């Protein structure tokens, strides 16, 4: 399937070097939210789409936050990429659809992003789910 990226286009100016004071403002905001998290345990999240950023700002923020130890990929109606930054408690959460197009992007300041842990609703039926699989195994072992 032909993709947009395959069309040969010469990019003359993509603005990637354009950095404004916005990147520093966002990083300061993250620092404040981290302090709040440490003090009260309250999680927060910044919608990257809502920020008026030049292309260079986005790269500057990503570069400053760096890369951490945890990297997770969730498959739920398209992939979601979760990357811990070098700053503990700051996570980069990017939601893609099946065509690898970005749907939404968040900087989450939290112990662990909400989408990772198993939900209580699922846990309620989890034991039953496993038990039925165990029963199936037992029956097929018996028949050997």
């Amino acid at each position, binding site marked *: 399937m032909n993709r*947009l990226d395959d069309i040969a286009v010469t990019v*003359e*100016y993509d*603005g990637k070097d354009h950095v404004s004071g916005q990147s520093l403002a966002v990083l300061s905001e993250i620092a404040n939210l981290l302090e709040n998290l440490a003090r009260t345990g309250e999680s*927060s*999240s*910044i*919608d990257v*789409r*809502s920020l008026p950023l030049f292309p260079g700002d986005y790269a500057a923020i990503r570069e400053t936050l760096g890369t951490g130890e945890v990297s997770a990929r*969730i498959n*739920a*109606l*398209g992939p*979601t990429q979760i990357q811990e930054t070098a700053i503990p408690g700051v996570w980069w959460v990017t*939601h893609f*659809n*099946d*065509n690898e*197009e*970005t*749907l*939404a992007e*968040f900087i989450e300041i939290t112990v662990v992003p*909400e*989408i990772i842990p198993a*939900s209580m*609703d*699922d846990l309620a039926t989890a034991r039953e789910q496993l038990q039925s699989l165990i029963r199936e195994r037992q029956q097929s072992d018996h028949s050997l």
Partner: protein
Amino acid sequence: MRKDETLAEHLQRQGISRRSFLKFCATTASLMALPPTMVPTIAKALGNVRRPSVIWLSFQECTGCTESLTRSHTPTIESLIFNAISLDYHHTLMAASGTAAEHARETAMKESYGKYLLIVDGSIPLKDNGLYSTIAGRTNLDMLQEVAKGAAAIVSVGTCAAFGGIPHANPNPTGAVPVSEIIKDKPIINVSGCPPIPVVITGVLTHYLTFGTIPELDSLGRPLAFFGDSIHDRCYRRPFYDQGKFAKTFDDEGARSGWCLYELGCKGPTTHNACATVKWNNGTSFPIESGHPCLGCSEPDFWDAGSFYKPLSTSTASVGQWAGAAVVAGAVAGAAYGLYNKKKQSDAVKSHEKLTVKDLEGS
């Protein structure tokens, strides 16, 4: 599909995980420009909403709005919203046709009277008793008036339903009018655009389902969350506009460097829509980013607003003819008046009239 189950139960039955649902809520909150703190509220509300009945009426339209909404090969995150509603009638998408389809509509109307959501795309022709567009032998006007009676709210999808659109353009041979000109006693949300951005349609539905209310609207009845800013206000090419760097043709150096398209006819300054931020095809691009000036398709009368390729500061009508006629008329009148003045003067001299201050004062 069971009508009285909640969305959460419905998704669970369909095997759509809790994480997918959370992802959907986060994405939609972002699209509706709501802060991330609203995500749990949206998740809770949508999770518990009982799927309301929705009736979609297509009138004098090109089906572009339905296409915009359904154009995807795989189920997308946006289409999840359609699990939250029970689309009981859409004569293009539904499986049934003919009398069976009309019967489905009548049943839905009766069962959810006063509570169903009515979505309309396409304008309504009024000329010659509205016979220019009929469904099952009934005029659009007739069907709209009947179905609107039991609707809780109406969403006019697309510029045709919101403002009249293409059929309404000069000379409007069918007498096309928007929904708001016919229905006056129901809340109407105008989601304009030719077509509207798909996520704007689903965003409005999500708002209605989450909060049970109409979102805040602008003076033309469009949701402020998506139509509050003009394209010009959020355009990434603004720095070029401010510096006076304009593309003069479609293929010159300026165009290739991504300069402002004002001189090529961009209607961005007078157009309100979410194209510059939300963009099209899941955030891929929008007309200006692809090098084409904005047409202003979410505004009323955009088809009659002069050429798409002449700048906003130019006139929409030809001034030349009027100018020519005016010069001729002025010349005739001026010469005649001047000669009259001359005659008055010579008459005054002949009759030895005295000169007064008033004569010297002039006009």
